[in-house]
């Protein structure tokens, strides 16, 4: 046990590279020692260091010497410490002085261990040291765990800037769509006030076209005028006639051409039901 704890102390010293504050060199009872108060997690840590680094038997602590060393060690460091932390060190100093005083009382016979004023301190020191061993176990476990890597550790590539359109589109589709766009009209030299467009007007136009053709392309209703008002009126007219079951609307694919089919009287229903293309009757 003695050898392993000695090793433990030196290892713990090595673990504290982030020491801050001026080291205090103290001379007490003839031995010179070197303490950086900042490195210690608290009074128990410091006390344990004093005891272990001098190979003192923890069950027979020379209280006078350790008290002196403890006081010297905290002497310079306390000033720069937060009050609460300084209080923790001072409380331990007071405890040591109390124990020293109790030991000085004259006794008729040697003390039992249970009655020894040092017993409680020794119990706390041993308990603290016990948990330092656990700390060591946890530290080892932590660094071992740090050598295993989970998925997602290596930095993912940045996501692409451009989102792909949600449609399945080929270059050919894109070119065809671009070619089908009406060319922007050259700016007019003068602007005449435009005649208002009515849905009724488009309805009668549609009726006229459907009477003569097997099917009508929707853009035919819009293209000659090319304004938004015409497009809206034509769309409303087509929807209105579809609602009245005068025509039906078909679009084979998204963004494909919209075809309007007349719904014929029953005698011609068979012909109207066909969606065959490429006949001369198409009104385009």
């Amino acid at each position: 046990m003695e050898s392993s704890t000695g090793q433990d102390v030196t290892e713990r010293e090595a673990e504290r590279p982030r020491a801050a504050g001026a080291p205090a060199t103290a001379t007490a009872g003839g031995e010179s020692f070197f303490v950086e108060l900042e490195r210690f997690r608290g009074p128990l840590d410091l006390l344990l260091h004093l005891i272990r680094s001098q190979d003192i038997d923890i069950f027979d602590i020379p209280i006078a010497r350790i008290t002196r060393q403890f006081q010297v060690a905290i002497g310079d460091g306390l000033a720069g410490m937060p009050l609460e932390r300084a209080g923790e060190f001072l409380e331990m100093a007071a405890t040591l002085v109390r124990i020293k005083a109790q030991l000085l009382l004259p006794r008729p016979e040697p003390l039992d261990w249970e009655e020894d004023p040092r017993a409680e301190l020794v119990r706390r020191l041993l308990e603290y040291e016990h948990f330092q061993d656990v700390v060591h176990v946890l530290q080892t476990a932590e660094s071992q765990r740090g050598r295993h890597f989970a998925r997602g550790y290596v930095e993912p590539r940045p996501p692409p800037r451009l989102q792909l359109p949600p449609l399945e589109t080929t270059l050919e589709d894109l070119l065809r769509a671009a070619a089908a766009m009406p060319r922007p009209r050259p700016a007019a030299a003068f602007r005449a006030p435009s005649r208002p467009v009515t849905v009724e007007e488009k309805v009668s136009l549609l009726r006229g076209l459907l009477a003569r053709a097997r099917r009508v392309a929707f853009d035919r209703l819009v293209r000659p005028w090319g304004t938004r008002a015409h497009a809206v009126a034509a769309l409303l007219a087509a929807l209105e006639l579809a609602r009245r079951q005068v025509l039906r609307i078909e679009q084979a694919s998204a963004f494909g051409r919209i075809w309007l089919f007349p719904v014929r009287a029953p005698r011609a229903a068979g012909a109207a039901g066909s969606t065959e293309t490429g006949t001369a009757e198409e009104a385009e």
Partner: protein
Amino acid sequence: MRPEQIVEATLFASQAPLTAEELARADDELTPDAVAAAIDTLRAAYEEQDRAFQIYELGGGFQVLTRPEFAPYLERFDSVPRPPHLSGAALETLAIVAYRQPIGRIEIEEVRGVGASSVLRTLTDWELIRVVGRGEGLGRPLLYGTTDRFLEHFGLRSLDELPSPEDLPVALAAAE
């Protein structure tokens, strides 16, 4: 699909440990026992094939992690934040909570000889400990215990993997 393949796919796709119960949800045919058997089969297969990863058990869950010998290569990619190494005060407090849980702040401070409020708050924020109840006595103090994340952080299967007090170099032996 064979159970091993389903378990493998699920573990592969996960970034966090999954329990046998969670893995069993992947398929109606799977039971936690079947998952455990599948994991044994996979582990043996990875071992035999000398794969760079293995299935590890952490905090009651299973996770695919690289083997430690590949750490030097992976450490070159330091761009993803890794869990920080805990400070001495944090480790000290965790050690006490791990062995004495459920335990209150006052008892922790008695062992450490220093205040523990701020470190307890930090450890709670990091979900390494949590409040597990309230003690008797004045003010019904909060009692703390360790979490699954604690086990994960230290790569432990369960608290039983920590050495028992008698196995530590300094046992709390009664004074002779």
